[in-house]
Each structure stands twice: as structure tokens, then as C-alpha cells.
């Protein structure tokens, strides 16, 4: 593994802007009261002193609405009524400053979009075109729990490079060959032994600041039906308003809906994020809805993340511990609390 590189913060913005010669670059930007990942353009002010973006960066690879196919709806017109794949771009891109939890989230989503059985062509191509430069968390938030789900504030899963914020500098350590290649063209100087020691100390200090993790281990040995029929779901779900906040902000929720839309004499087939919180999510053509009650939908979200996924893949939960659903659920339904109930 090549040596970490160190960059002074004052030179960092010009280094980052230099990346635009080869890549489309996404950075955290403050927009009103919230941070969002946005494309770096002239005048964009990235803010690397952020805690995390309100939306996870999953949309950079998996947009909320994506045109898949299209066709004209005019008799006699070439290609009329025959859907053709919409033109798409898969330019090399960099997600710069992504938190380790969100990078881990991409690996979880990958299970759905890129596995031996199915490969989603657009997700895969966009993911392969992306380089992830993570920014470790010196000060993990009180609602973060990456350490409970197989990660840490400086976890490297899903990252190509990891960045350490060390007083007036950033230290960048390559994780993959893709990261090594990108880093070799960035400049900076090799970090010395003292600086490498500093990043180890930051990592240890951040990890020790996090609350001790709750255990997800008991989930595996629970019986699905016992959890499904557990007595606590009505109480857990009472306050739920069945909005899509938890699922839309989540880095690991992958469900989508496909819709045909027409405008004048043209048709688009669009893929949109969907949410298991919405009654329409499971509404059958017959009018029957197997999850027409609120508590059934709330239960589904937790059962999927904390049990069905666990049983199907045998590799942890469908959650990367970013804490967004804990912080922003309008009625404070806390997945950490639900996980503990399910483990009891």
C-alpha cells in the first residue's frame, strides 16, 4: 500500500478543483439549514467541516427519478410505441467527503443491484465510474451507531481513499488501486511517521467517543414469525405518520417503482425511489392490499432491515448506522430502540 499523502487545508480547494479536469466531483455543500452533496462547479463552496448530509449520497449512483426508456406515441413515427433505452452518461465521478457509514451503505445496496443473479446495468456502470473519497469522523454524532453494524468512524469498507482531518491538513490514505491511482495524480507530499501516528490517534479517539454498540447478534437466531407476531409493533408504530423520511434519507433503502409517463406524444418509463411506508407500495391490481395497516408497514421496514436481510445474506443488517432516520424521523421512531426490542 502506498504512503498516505498530506495536503494543507489552504491548498485543498485548488487540489479538489483540479479533479474536475478528469472527473465530475460531488462535495458536501451547505444549503440553508442542511448539507447536501452537490456537483462542484465554479463558485461552489464545499464544506468539509460538516457532520453529515441530510440525504445520503446514494442518489449520485441511484437517482431518485431516472428515465430508463422512452418512445414516441405517434402512429407512423419511427420507433413509435417501442421503448428504447434512454441515452445515459457514465462519466468518471468522485464522491469527495463521503462518510464511512454512507460508503458502507453503497456496499449494502450493491447486494441488490449487483449480484451474481442480477446486475442493474445503470447502477453498476455508474458505481464503477465512481471513486469514493471518504472523510473519517473525528466527532461521531450521538445518534450514530456505525460501530454497532460492522463499521467505525474511520471504517474503510466501500472507500477508495480515506481522508483524515488533522488540524490544518488533510491526510489521504489510499484503500484500493483505484484510490491509489487517483491519489498519485493529486500532488501533496508523503506523510511522515509522526503524521501517520497522528491519524492513528485520531481514529482511536473517535472510536472511543462513540457509545458502546448494541448487539445485533441475537437477530440471527430469532425466528421470523416470532418477531413478526411480536407484541410491540402497535406501540412502535403508533406515532408513525407513514411518511417517506426514513426510507428516502436512508443510504441502504433501495426499493423503487417503475412508472410510465406521457407528455403530449411522447412516453417515458421512469424509475423512482419508492417507500414501504406508503400504502401504495403494496397495493395489488385487484385492490387488495396485504399491508393496508400502518403497523404492518412499520414492521416491514424493520423486519426487512433487521431480519429478512440478515437471514438472506448472512452478513449483518441492512443498515450502516448513519443515524439519519433516528435524527430526522418526525416522530422519533428510533431503529436502535426497535433493534433492542427485536433482540430481547
Amino acid at each position, binding site marked *: 500500500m502506498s504512503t498516505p499523502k498530506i495536503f494543507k487545508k489552504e491548498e485543498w480547494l485548488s487540489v479538489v478543483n483540479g479533479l474536475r479536469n478528469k472527473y465530475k466531483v460531488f462535495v458536501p455543500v451547505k444549503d440553508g439549514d442542511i448539507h447536501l452533496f452537490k456537483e462542484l462547479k465554479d463558485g461552489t463552496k464545499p464544506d468539509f467541516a460538516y*457532520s453529515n448530509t*441530510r440525504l445520503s449520497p446514494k442518489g449520485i449512483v441511484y437517482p431518485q427519478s431516472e428515465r430508463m426508456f422512452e418512445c414516441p406515441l405517434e402512429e407512423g413515427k419511427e420507433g413509435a410505441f417501442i421503448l428504447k433505452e434512454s441515452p445515459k452518461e457514465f462519466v468518471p465521478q468522485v464522491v469527495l467527503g463521503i462518510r464511512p457509514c454512507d460508503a458502507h451503505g453503497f456496499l449494502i445496496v450493491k447486494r441488490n443491484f449487483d449480484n451474481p443473479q442480477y446486475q442493474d446495468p445503470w447502477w453498476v456502470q455508474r458505481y464503477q465510474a465512481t471513486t469514493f473519497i471518504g472523510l473519517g469522523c473525528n466527532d461521531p454524532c450521538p445518534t450514530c451507531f456505525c460501530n454497532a453494524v460492522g463499521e467505525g468512524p474511520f471504517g474503510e469498507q466501500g472507500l477508495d481513499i480515506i481522508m483524515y482531518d488533522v488540524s490544518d491538513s488533510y491526510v489521504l490514505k489510499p484503500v484500493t488501486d483505484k484510490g491509489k491511482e487517483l491519489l498519485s495524480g493529486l500532488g501533496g507530499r508523503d506523510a511522515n511517521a509522526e503524521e501517520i501516528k497522528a491519524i492513528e490517534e485520531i481514529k482511536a479517539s473517535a472510536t472511543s467517543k462513540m457509545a458502546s454498540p448494541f448487539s445485533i447478534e441475537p437477530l440471527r437466531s430469532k425466528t421470523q414469525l416470532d418477531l413478526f407476531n411480536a407484541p410491540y409493533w402497535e406501540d412502535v408504530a403508533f406515532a408513525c405518520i407513514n411518511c*417517506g423520511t426514513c426510507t428516502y434519507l436512508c443510504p441502504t433503502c433501495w426499493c423503487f417503482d417503475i412508472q410510465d409517463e406521457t407528455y403530449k406524444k411522447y412516453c417515458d418509463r421512469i424509475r*423512482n425511489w419508492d*417507500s414501504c411506508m406508503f400504502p401504495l407500495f403494496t397495493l395489488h391490481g385487484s385492490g387488495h392490499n396485504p399491508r393496508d395497516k400502518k403497523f404492518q408497514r412499520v414492521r416491514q421496514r424493520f423486519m426487512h432491515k433487521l431480519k429478512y436481510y440478515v437471514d438472506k445474506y448472512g452478513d449483518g443488517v441492512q443498515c450502516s448506522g448513519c443515524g439519519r432516520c433516528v435524527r430526522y424521523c418526525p416522530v422519533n421512531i428510533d431503529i436502535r*430502540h426497535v433493534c433492542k426490542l427485536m433482540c430481547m
Partner: protein
Amino acid sequence: MIGYTEKIRKRARELLAEGKVDAFVGYRLGSVPLMNQPVMIKRPEDTEQLVWDSNCCLNLANYLTKRQERIGIVANGCNSRNIVIHITENQIKREQLYILGIPCEGTLDHRAILRAMGEKELISYAEQGDSFTVKANGLEKTFKKTDFLRTNCKTCQHKNPVIYDELLGELVPENTNVDPYSDVRAIENQSSEKKWEFFRNLISKCLRCYACRNACPLCYCPTCFVDESKPQWVGKSIDPTDTMTFHILRAFHCAGRCTDCGACERVCPVAIPMRQFTKKLNKDAKELFNWEPGLSLDQRPLFDFYKPEDYNDFVY
């Protein structure tokens, strides 16, 4: 306001134990500071969960729709007005409810507090009379409540409950000399293009998560028009045309019914100032029809009856 907690617990416990109600709806503390959670309590021993503080911001009338039980409920000004609307719109019966009235001195704007804390996540909240103290890692600050009231609370003219079976505290003086609509007037005076731009900007971050709609006690349709699939009226993508259709129609469905409780604005995950969609309609209802919704069980809703003297300048 924290003094209400003990009174609520005591009365809720008694009401449940005496069998006067089957369930009690109130708030409990959330796992995150400033984020209280609506809760339904069914056993007297669980009433210890109930709390009242300046973060009881969601509208509890939202949890009453079509319920069959006899329910005890805490109600400040806005909760009580939406309970009145629920009763007059036949979503619940008056005789099903036992209302503990709470004169309210306003609730807090959690976004303003986080801003004042440099967007650091909070680890604790405690209130003492007119002030409150919040802590984040390595940071502790005490603020005056009046400096952090939600904007709808600042100009609220119905702090006291309008309907109750018993009152848990002394009535508080209502604001009389406030102007709730200065922001609306600023928009009214702009050109059509500017107004359109204003609303386009409002929705630019919208995710179509429907938290605003779902937190609103007025939105109780069994199937919302945006969820209709046979036929489907509105597209599902985040195309601005569809997003705007949702927001404008939602607002108009609330015309003459909105109490400006601010639940929609409170819950928006991307901090859209949602009340800007409904406030102009509230202002029109007040100025054109001298109407404020949810004040009395004896009044039919604004669009439910006709009076010869109603404003009709728009009829040609």
C-alpha cells in the same frame, strides 16, 4: 410548562383506572432531544411515560381519525382547534373524548436551536421556567424560550384551548397586537413571475416524502389524490410540475381549515418552510370571510354553508 407533566400523568392515570377512557393520547420524550413522540397509553401504570414541555409540536388531532375508543387527550390551543375541526368534519365524536386543556406558552423551533448550537447534534435538553439549556459535545448553552419560539407560536392568537373537559392550568393572556401575515403581504406585492419563482424555490428540495401531508390532521382522506392509481392524477417523479401540483392542491384542500399549527413545517426533512403554502389562504379566509377555523363546535366549516353576505366579488 414542565409543571403540566405531573398533572397530565395524574389525570390520565385516574381516567384510565376509573374506566372513563379506554386510551390516553399524549406525548412522551423522544430518544433525541427536542423530538417528543406522540403516544397512546392504555394501562394506568404506563402513564409515567407522559410529558409536556416546549417540544410538543406534533398535532395530536392527527391520531384521532375514525378511532372507535373513548380517548383522553391533551390539548393546547392548536391541538384543541384541530379536535374541533375533527368533530365538525365527523372524524371523531365529541362524546368519545375527554380533553385535558393546556394553556400553551408556545413551542420551540428545533431548527433555530440547532443553528444557535452551530448545527451540533444535541445530547440533552432541560427547561427551567422561561429558559432552557441544551448540551452538545463540548458545548452547553442556556437560551430564553421567547427567543426560540416557532414562528407560528410567535404570532399565535389562540394559545388557550378552545374546547376541554378540564383545564390543567390558568388561562394565559392571548397575543392581541401581532401581525401574522407580514410575510404573506411581502409576496402578495410581487409580480406573478416573482411569486411563481418563490414557490418554485420552495419546492426545489422536496423529496415527495409526504411528511407534511401526513403530519397534518386535516389530511385524513382514505386515499389522497396523489396516491390514486385508478386513474392516476399526478406523476410520481420529482418533476417540478408534479411536485408543485401536489403542494398547491394540498394547500387548497386546507383552505379555510388550516389552524397554522405548523406540524407540516416542523416535520419536513429538508426544512421547507411549508406554512408559506397555506398562510395566504388563511389570510384570505380571515379577511374575506372573517373566518378562523376550529374555534367552536357550533360553527359549520367555512365551505360547508352559505351566507348571503359572504364575499362574492369573484363572481361575475
